[in-house]
């Protein structure tokens, strides 16, 4: 197995090739993507969440709250098979989706964000790939090929995959980690076999408490803990928890887990193991680094319903379901709009699958809130588009706030909920528009 990382001497001596270098960044950064003719087109059509066009290429639009270092080094860069995304780190690859691609409720595969913890990422051959299913909490064991999975009843779910640390870069004070802006998320139509059906092939003992996943990606040095994740059996048995082999009607892109990944609707992306090679039922809690030490939040700080009881301690608990959230995507911070002309603000809202009930906007600093119009409902786990028409009256700075609520009464937080690793940022957005 050849190591994928280049020899160290290569890292430092290879000349820059292609686009995406420092010079390139300067030509595209901080361009307000609704400036000029594109803005006029949107205003004239009044369209909800228009899809990006070729004339309206993605731009960096790095939030001003990001660490200075992040703003200095992030560039637009294309991984093989991907559009130019916001590169935060090359190796392991961590690339976020520019907000233009969130103007529709479905995120295109080639613009879907990329997140890896470990840098040894093999390209898997779908024809010979197998996933082993078993474990000491199962009655038997088996191996399934891609064809085996495709012969099983197909289940489709439209679901948001969002990194637990999305918006970590907006934390004040800053915390270390991948300094994501708004784009460590995406929503796709996932197709695959239900995990419940896969587990039924081996039979799960009644003592089983967790289902453990491992993928083909591994560490650069052997002592680095392999990325192994578990979910409680109750979550694994939900109808919509999948081993997915299709994303928006296509095979999964390599960098999103080809040929198959775990899909855990409502829960953060950390459990959505890519290139999955092993599914095990266990009767004792998984104790690896990525469960026991990483991806944990303080107990009682977040208004969450879903618990992962077998992994809880007195002080912390694994991150589980996503918090309710929203994002204005028609305009980036600093975009210019015209006084006296109506402008359609659009965006998306999502939660852990309880269902978005309202999205409200405020143009007076949160004193009063007006309901936005919700778009098509693609399912309770999906992005829900919204739109709101605003006519800015006077020139100058106009702050627009957006907040979503869900059907169980959860809403976004007005103040950041601090936690050491920078998870679950769902502070009500305050978008600054320049009215000219």
């Amino acid at each position, binding site marked *: 197995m050849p190591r994928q990382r280049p020899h160290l001497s290569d890292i430092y001596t*290879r000349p820059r090739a292609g686009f995406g*270098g420092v010079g390139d960044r300067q030509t595209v950064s901080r361009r307000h993507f609704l400036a000029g003719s594109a803005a006029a087109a949107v205003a004239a059509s009044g369209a909800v969440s228009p899809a990006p066009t070729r004339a309206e290429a993605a731009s960096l639009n790095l939030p001003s709250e990001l660490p200075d270092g*992040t703003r200095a*080094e992030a560039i637009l860069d294309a991984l093989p098979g991907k559009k130019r995304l916001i590169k935060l780190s090359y190796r392991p690859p961590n690339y976020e989706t520019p907000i233009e691609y969130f103007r529709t409720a479905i995120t295109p595969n080639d613009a879907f964000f990329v997140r890896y913890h470990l840098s040894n990422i093999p390209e898997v051959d779908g024809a010979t790939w197998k996933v082993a299913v078993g474990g000491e909490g199962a009655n038997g064991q088996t191996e399934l090929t891609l064809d085996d999975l495709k012969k099983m009843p197909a289940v489709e779910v439209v679901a948001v995959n969002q990194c637990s640390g999305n918006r970590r870069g907006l934390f004040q004070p800053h915390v270390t980690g991948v300094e994501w802006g708004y784009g460590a998320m995406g929503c796709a139509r996932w197709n695959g076999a239900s995990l419940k059906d896969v587990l039924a092939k081996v039979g799960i003992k009644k003592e089983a408490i967790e289902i453990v996943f491992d993928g083909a990606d*591994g560490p650069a040095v*052997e002592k680095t803990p392999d990325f192994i994740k578990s979910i409680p059996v109750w979550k694994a048995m939900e109808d919509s928890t999948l081993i997915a082999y299709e994303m928006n009607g296509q095979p999964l892109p390599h960098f999103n887990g080809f040929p198959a990944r775990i899909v855990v609707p409502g829960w953060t992306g950390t459990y959505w193991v890519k290139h999955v090679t092993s599914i095990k039922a266990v009767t004792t809690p998984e104790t690896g680094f990525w469960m026991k030490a990483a991806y944990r939040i303080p107990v009682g700080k977040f208004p969450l319903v879903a618990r992962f009881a077998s992994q809880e301690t007195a002080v912390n608990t694994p991150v589980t379901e996503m918090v309710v959230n929203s994002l204005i995507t028609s305009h980036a911070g600093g975009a210019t709009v015209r006084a006296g002309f109506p402008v359609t603000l659009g965006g998306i809202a999502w939660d852990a699958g309880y269902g978005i009930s309202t999205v409200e906007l405020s143009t007076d600093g949160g004193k009063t809130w007006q309901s936005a119009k919700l778009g098509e409902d693609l399912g309770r786990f999906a992005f829900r588009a919204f739109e709101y028409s605003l006519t800015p009256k006077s020139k100058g700075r106009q702050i627009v706030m957006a907040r979503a609520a869900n059907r169980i009464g959860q809403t976004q937080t007005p103040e950041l909920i601090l936690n050491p690793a920078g998870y679950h940022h769902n502070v009500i957005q305050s978008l600054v528009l320049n009215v000219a």
Partner: protein
Amino acid sequence: MRIFALVLLATAFAMPAAADEKPIQLKEAPGLDKVEGNCAGCHSLDYVVMNSPFPNAAVWDAEVSKMIKSFGAPIEEPDAKIVADYLKKQYGN
């Protein structure tokens, strides 16, 4: 998946598709050679720039310690101190 297991499964995997990684030039200062030699084997050095300049000395110490203790980075103690000092001076607050 562990590396030894990957070897067994080598027939299932073709050559990996690596990102077109560009060189990351950190600030020229004493200790840079140790940072490049000890850190870049596991991750690109844009991680350093991205996580700056907000960490104070204690945070950079904790990061270097985490790389060694949690992630198994094979960094000897004298080098670990040089790396941490470089990060504090060049990418700290």
